Structure formats: structure tokens, C-alpha cells
């Protein structure tokens, strides 16, 4: 069974008196362990699709399920729990909590999950080590570089052991060196730990790493390709 199954998905927004169809008739399945990219021009619906899969927004039409569970019909608190236990987010603007240290930022999701304090700390340190930030564990985000902040965001996204990591333009604010470093890190995590990644991106470096590329245009899936097939788990 596919990890994510999407059938006939549509999302319309009301802008003043005009209804804007951000997504329509999307059919997509994402298997466990994929390292995939959503590409397309601005306004093609990449972020909207990620938001719907991440349970941040609700579709207007169609069905969307994760591991067989329909998330389009979940209530507010169940949707919160869905995000907490199933999804890891990496945002373009890092979106770290500025008053928490690097360690506390990584612990945050685990704390919300109700894990014991000792386990939260041990796991957070392990993930910080994994992304090369263990020595900076007690620094606050503003004391970290952009690349370090995005790696911290990856560590936070992974710490709660999500089924799926959604990354919205994760390299957009990074220079080439940091962008490549981040991509290597995520690719390694995918290959070594089997974590499923789905990116939205404009960045050709990300597209080059992806083993499956889904192209969106005007809110519809326009094309699908497998440039890196055979390198990953699937």
C-alpha cells in the first residue's frame, strides 16, 4: 500500500469574489522511502499540495490518505495529532522557535508527543550530531548561520520519527555550498534510514538529486519523470 494516496484532489480559494482553483484533479501515490520533488513554476500549486498532504489545509474535493487513513475528514485536534506523529516539516524560511536553543527546538516535537524528558534529550542530541550541530546544541537559532539553521530544521523534522518529511523550497535561502550540503544530508538520511522525503523546489540541484520528479502546471500534474531511478530505495 502506498504511503500517500491522492485521488481527484482539488483545492479552490476565494479571492474576493473570484474563486481561484489552486489544484484540480490530482492523482498521486507516494511510496515509503521515496525521495521525490514537486516542480513547476510559481503558482503551479506545489506549496498548496504540500500543505494538503501535511494536514495544514483541507482539500475542496477528492480524497487524501496517509497509510490508508483519510485525513481530509479529520477534525481540528485529530489533524494536529496527525501532523505531530506523521509529518516532519522543513520550511524555506527555517521557521525555528527563536527563544528555544537548538537542542530545545529539536526536542520540541518529541515533547509534544509526550516522550520522557531523558529520551527527548538523548534523541535530540543524536539528531543534532547527525546534522553536524551537536557542538552548537545550546545556541539559539539567531546565533547560527542560514545553513546551520536549515540543518537544525531537518533535525527537528526527523526527531519525531515522522512517516513523511515535507520540505518546501528547503534550499531557496541557502548558498550553493550549504544547499549541496543539505541535499547530501537529506539524501543520506533517505538512503540510510529510509525516511520518505517530498520536496517542492525550483532548484535544479534538488531536481537532479530527486529520484522522482512530479511537474505541476496550473494546478494539475503535467508530467512525471524518474531522473535518479535506481539510486534510492525504490
Amino acid at each position, binding site marked *: 500500500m502506498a504511503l500517500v494516496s491522492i485521488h481527484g484532489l482539488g483545492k479552490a480559494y476565494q479571492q474576493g469574489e473570484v474563486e481561484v482553483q489552486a489544484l484540480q484533479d490530482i492523482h498521486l501515490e507516494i511510496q515509503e522511502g521515496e525521495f521525490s520533488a514537486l516542480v513547476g513554476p510559481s503558482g503551479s500549486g506545489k506549496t498548496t499540495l504540500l*500543505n494538503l498532504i*501535511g494536514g*495544514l*489545509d483541507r482539500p475542496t474535493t477528492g480524497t487524501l490518505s496517509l497509510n490508508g487513513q483519510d485525513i481530509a475528514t479529520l477534525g*481540528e*485536534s485529530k489533524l*494536529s*495529532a496527525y*501532523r*505531530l*506523529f506523521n509529518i516532519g*516539516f522543513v*520550511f524555506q524560511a527555517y*521557521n525555528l*522557535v*527563536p*527563544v*528555544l536553543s537548538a537542542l530545545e527546538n529539536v526536542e*520540541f*516535537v518529541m*515533547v*509534544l*508527543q509526550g516522550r520522557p524528558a531523558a529520551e527527548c534529550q538523548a534523541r535530540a542530541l543524536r539528531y543534532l550530531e547527525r546534522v553536524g550541530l551537536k557542538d552548537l546544541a545550546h545556541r539559539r537559532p539567531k546565533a547560527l548561520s542560514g545553513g546551520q539553521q536549515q540543518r537544525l530544521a531537518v533535525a*527537528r523534522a526527523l526527531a*519525531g520519527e515522522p512517516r513523511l518529511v515535507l520540505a518546501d523550497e528547503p534550499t531557496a535561502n541557502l548558498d550553493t555550498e550549504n544547499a549541496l550540503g543539505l541535499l547530501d544530508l537529506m539524501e543520506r538520511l533517505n538512503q540510510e534510514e529510509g525516511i520518505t522525503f517530498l520536496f517542492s523546489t525550483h532548484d535544479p540541484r534538488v531536481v537532479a538529486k530527486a529520484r522522482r520528479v512530479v511537474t505541476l502546471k496550473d494546478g494539475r500534474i503535467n508530467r512525471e519523470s524518474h531522473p535518479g531511478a535506481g539510486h534510492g530505495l525504490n
Partner: protein
Amino acid sequence: MNLYRLLRLAWRNLWRNRRRTLITMTTIALGFAMAVFFIGLGDGGHNQMIRSAINMGEGHLTVQPRGYLESPANAKVLPDSVSLLTKLQHAGIPGTLSPRLALQVLASTAANSVGAVLEGLHVEQDPHVKDFRNRLVQGAWLAPGDTQGLAIGQRMAEKLKVRIGSKIIMMAGGDQGEVESRLGRVRAIYRTGLTELDAFMIISSQEFAQALLPATVRREGLQPITRLAIYLEQEDDLEPVKARLAALSLPDGAQLLDWREMMPQVVNFVIADDMGNYIWLVFILVMVTFGILNTILMSALERTREFGLLRALGLGRRHLLSLVLLETLLLALVSLALGWAVGGSLHAWFAIQGLDLSSMYPEGLESGGMFMEPVLYSELSWTRVWALSGIVFFTTLISGIYPAIKAARVPPVAALQT
């Protein structure tokens, strides 16, 4: 997320904009300190006025003929003060019992005549005495056994054109039209600063006043009185002692009243004056409310994106609501602590040193028809402390509700796009 972690996060959030938080805290703390200061001085003034009124008046509790307060008359007496005193002494009332005989008289000299109240009392033991004795401007206080001696106010002395040693004829009417008269001599002239005492009150021994009673109510050996004033050692004893006295069988026609019933004008004055303090308090609360609302609402609006992030990461609405409310709670607690530190220090200083108004009122201070010492001392009861803290604390919390609800309603997807 447990309370400790939520509190820690709230505390750090509070100090994100250190300057704004400090300004808000200072505003609340200073407003609160001012409220403590003014209410402390107000309460101190009221208590001082009440104590003065009780001392200069008829004690904490008074036993007097029924209806005397509404329409005093020379024939309305408690005919047997001896057995009443004995009964109360046996009951072990904690305080001083002062029998008094007050008569409405006409005081005349060769120069003038004035209507006056003659108060016959025990010239040595009555607690009332020291208030006059300490304010003598001429002569010496009445000696025990002096059956002619009178102490009068300075304004009455001026009206009657008398001095120490001068004679005054006292005349008192009964309810049957009979008139009793007696000659007295001025031994002392006092000045309290209160017109109704200085112009209309004459003090004499009980024996002198009893001789002016109408023949119909005069009883040899029974020592009729118009009032038995009871001065308690502890003000807090008022209600229990009143209850004990009410349980005793008082003589027919006798009535037990406390100072509030005896002096409703004092109670009304305090209530009216308190209203002024409450208006001040409302002003403080409005300041607190808007200060908090501004800080927490601005802080919440600035963090819309972050609230969206927290919601995206899985923080529930309830937790987000609690987080913002905890920020308000911490702001309220720290502000209150600061406010108490400043207001409490001001209160402590003025409770010990007092606020000396004597240079502003060299003639003495009269408030609500009562004499007041020119030095005001701050007083705060625990009830006031809890009420003030509670009102400011809950006002602060309430002003945090709107920003908290606003934060909790942030839709994650919209917030992340801001």
C-alpha cells in the same frame, strides 16, 4: 506538553521584547503602587477619623434610652446606672464603661446666653476627658469633687464673654415645662478645632449635671444617665461584645447601638470618600488593562507566523491558548510583585513616619465633622491587600484572554504565509 515546559517557554516569550515588557511592567507596577499608596493613606485617614469619632463621641458601643438618638430630651434617661454598670462589670466586658449624662441647657452670663449640651461625666476616669484635657488653652482640668466646675470651648467662652473663674448659670427644661437651674464656674477652656464642640459643649462632673435633671426623673442614689459609653480594648472585639451585650437583658427602655449606628454621618462620609478611591482604582485598572492588552496583543500579532509554525508542528489550540495566557499570568505576577515592592515600601514608610499635614492645616484638621490628627498614617488591612492584588491580577488575566483566543485561532497555513 507539561506545565513546566509551557511556563519556561512563556517566560522566554515574555522577554523577547525586553524594553516593551519592562515598560508595561513598570506602568502596571507604578499604577498599582500609587493605588496602594492612596488607598493606604485613605484608609489610614478614615480609621483615624473613626477612632477619633469613637473617642470624642460615645465609644464603640453605647447603651442609651430607646429613641434618644432620634429625639434627645432631658427627661429621657436610664434611671438606674448603678445596677446597669454592675451587670456589665459582672459580664466581663473587655474595655472601659463610661456613664454619662448629657443635657440640653441654656448657658447664661451677664453678657449673653447660648444653647449648649452639658455633658456630666467622671472627670478623671472617662476616656473622653483626655481629648479635652490635652487641648486646654486656659485654666486647669476639673478636679474630682469639684461640684461647680465647668470646662467650656474657646468659642463659647468668647460668646459668653467669660474667663477662668467666671460664673455661668445653667438652665435645663423638663418634659412637663419645669426648669432646673444651677450655677457653675469656668475652670478650663479648651480648643479642639471642631465647631460643634468648641461652641456648644460644656463638660462638668456627673453630680453637677444630675442636679439639673427634671425632678420627675431624678432618683436619689440611682444616678440616672443618658448614655453608657463602652470603649473596647480591641476594635475587633466589637461584633462579639455586641452579641454578648445583646444577649444580656438590658433594662426596659434601654437600647444597644454600635458606633456605626450612633454616627451614621461618619459611615456615610467614609463611603463617599471611598468612592473617590474606587474611581482611582478603576483608573488604575483601565491603565493595567490597556497596558497588558497592548503588550500581549502586539506580541501575539508579531508572532502570528510562529503560532502557525507551532500549530503546524502539532501544538494543539488549547496549549497555544494556555501559552499566551501563561505569558499574561507571568506578566501580572511580576508586575504585582514590583508594584507591591514599591507600594508596600511607600505604605511602610507612611505607616511609620506618617504624612505631616500640620503646615497645611495649622488650625487642625476637620474632616466629615470629626477632628483629625494633622499627621496621616497609612493603614492597609489584609482584606485590602488581597482585594487590591486580586483585582489587578484578574484584570490582567482577563485582558490576556482576547490575545490568547486570537493566537489559538491562527490557521497554520495562513499564518505560515505571513
